[in-house]
């Protein structure tokens, strides 16, 4: 049993299917997440695969700040991600609302809607930072 569990933790750490959802932001974080998939950074060597479907997702990368319309969408998406899951807020907007925090339509960072596991700062964070953020959240799967 212990061995099976060990193997499960190992598998979870090595196989992360990700989805990114861009909330209200400048889109720069999405671009950098995209770039992280490509030859220079190659997320797939860590077993991280881009799926784009919440039902297949282990890691949700949220970029941008929450507004009144996309809040519902984010909730819907989170509801369809099976546990155990990792939620990573990427970029300043997703952390705090960023430069737009004072705008009338902005509620704030992603943590206003979901429990965020890892925060990746930067405007936008570099692909290395995104990778580092995801990988540093892996310990969540130990439990």
């Amino acid at each position, binding site marked *: 049993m212990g061995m099976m569990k060990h193997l499960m933790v190992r598998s979870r750490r090595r196989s992360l299917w990700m989805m990114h959802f861009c909330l209200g932001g400048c889109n720069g974080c999405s671009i950098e997440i995209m770039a992280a998939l490509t030859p220079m950074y190659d997320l797939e060597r860590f077993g991280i695969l881009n799926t784009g479907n919440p039902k297949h997702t282990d890691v949700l990368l949220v970029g941008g700040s929450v507004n009144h319309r996309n809040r519902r*969408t984010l909730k*819907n*998406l989170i509801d*369809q991600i099976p546990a155990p899951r990792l939620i990573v807020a990427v970029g300043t907007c997703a952390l705090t609302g960023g430069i737009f925090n004072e705008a009338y339509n902005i509620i704030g960072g992603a943590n206003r809607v979901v429990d965020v596991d890892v925060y990746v700062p930067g405007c936008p964070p570099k692909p290395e930072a995104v990778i580092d953020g995801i990988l540093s959240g892996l310990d969540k799967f130990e439990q």
Partner: protein
Amino acid sequence: MVSTMPYLVLTSILLPPFAALISAGLSGRRPRASVSIFTGAVLIALAPFLAFAGSFSFSTEGRPIPWNLLIHWADFLLLAVVLIVAVRLKSILGSVFIAIQLLVLLGLEIFWGEALASDPVLASSAVARVTALVVNIVGGLILIYSPGYIHRHFADPDTGKERFFFFFLLLFPGAMNGLVFSNHLLWLLFFWEVTTVCSFALIAVDRTEEAVASALKALWMTMLGGVALVSGIVLVHHYGGFLRLDQITAAPASGPVLLGVGLLCFAGLTKAAQVPFQGWLIDAMVAPAPVSALLHSSTMVKAGVYLILILSPAFAGTFLASGLALIGAMSFLAMGVVAVSQRHGKRILAYSTVLNLGMIIVCAALGTAAATAAAILLIVFHAVSKALLFLTVGTAAQATGSSELDGLRGLFRTMPLTSVLMALGLLTLLLPPFGLMIGKWLALQSAAGRPLVIALLAVGTAFHLMLYARWAGDLLWGRAAEKAGQAEKLPPGARLSMMALAALAVGLVPLVPTFLVHPSFFGFPGGGVDASVFAGAYPGILIFGALLCAAAGFAAVVLRRLPPAVFRTPYCCGAEAKVDGQAGFKGPMNVFEPARFSDYHLAGSFGNQKIVFWLNAAAVIVMVVVAAGISATG
């Protein structure tokens, strides 16, 4: 046992008309329903005896009743009555074909007269007994199903429509029993005409313009078959001196006799609604569900393939056989193509009937032991599955008001039992280890040596998945509403017959080699079927079936225990919303859009009427070439 056989057969032929007369004399729904259910039950009880009690024959010689004379005059009378009806309904083609038949029959009577007696008039060949088994069991179940349906169908019990309906519905199985046990060709002709008339009456039962038009279409097409049948009899009798089926099938025919056999087969093609005569059967689905079930599954169309199958020793290996195989394979492919573009459930089933009959005709034409076994299996299992489907679709249509595929979507929510039975029916048409698949397997195997035929069959087979699988999936859309079971109130007769048909469709499978096509029960034309046909594969299929049951049961038990929290809305890109328990999404302007998805019908390419035209033209060309070929070689 053997001594009682003639009485059993006569009962099976005479009880239905007798019951029909009684029900016509009765007033009130309940008594008529009782007669129908009782007749159905008796036929079902009779069926195993008819099938397994061994061979029998019935001769007219020395009987107190002049049977031959009776049949002849009854035939004249019948045709005369229908002629009057056809003329009154202004059906030119119908009237002409009936008139021709009358004239030819008259000619037969005048020229040959007394010589037309030939015994035994009734006999039971192997194919006949299997067909009788199907006719009586499936037909009986449909009789049991009918009252519940028809009482809802006709709002007013006293318009006479219901009386009319039950009269012909009850008459039908009797005519079919007569047809399959006929050995004498003129007897066969008589029963053949009775089934034609019954189907004509039953299609028209609603008396709507569409129903009458469809009935008249059926009438002229099948009456054209009647003309071919009569002419075939004349040829066969004049050149071969044959008047009985056992004489014709004793040896391969040639020359004009083969042409006569060809005409008989042509009659079979019209009855089995093969191209270019598919039109009447497709339109016939306007009739109430029990009628469609009866026409499509057990009776009318099976008469056509029965005739071709039983004649197969007479044309084995000839040019005619190749022609028939081609026509059958063309029907098989083309009807699949056309059916894909349809949206109407009953229409799809109608096309599917034609294509299955096409495959049976291919088997009959191939004539090998395996092919014959395939034909038998296809006849049996197709009848059961198709009856189940027509009955469930009818039930659903009555409850929901629609038999369009789009209307049946998500039926599981409101009618769990009906929808599951319907889905099962669809899967039995398609998947292993069910009977139709075994039939298709043997058919494909037999056709392997003929590249064109197997190519047509191969391309056609692929359409079946598209026809049935998506439909079955559609039915089970969504989750069962609470108390759906109570809401789905079915009449007991309907529930019983649908369940019985489903049980047959599944439960007959293990009986195939030992029972349905085993030589010890039915010696087959073409040398008989032995176990080698199934060598190796069949036990494997059974093991597969057993494992399937085990796996399905296990999965069902495990999945039953899934807690409700497991169920989530389907993915709609984060815009998911639910209104009144219906899944969907919030669209532009914040408007709720319920989930809607219609199947791919490819109406633009496959549903094109031009395809049908060219197809009919091709079929006519094949027929002309075959006729010319036979004449030339003769």
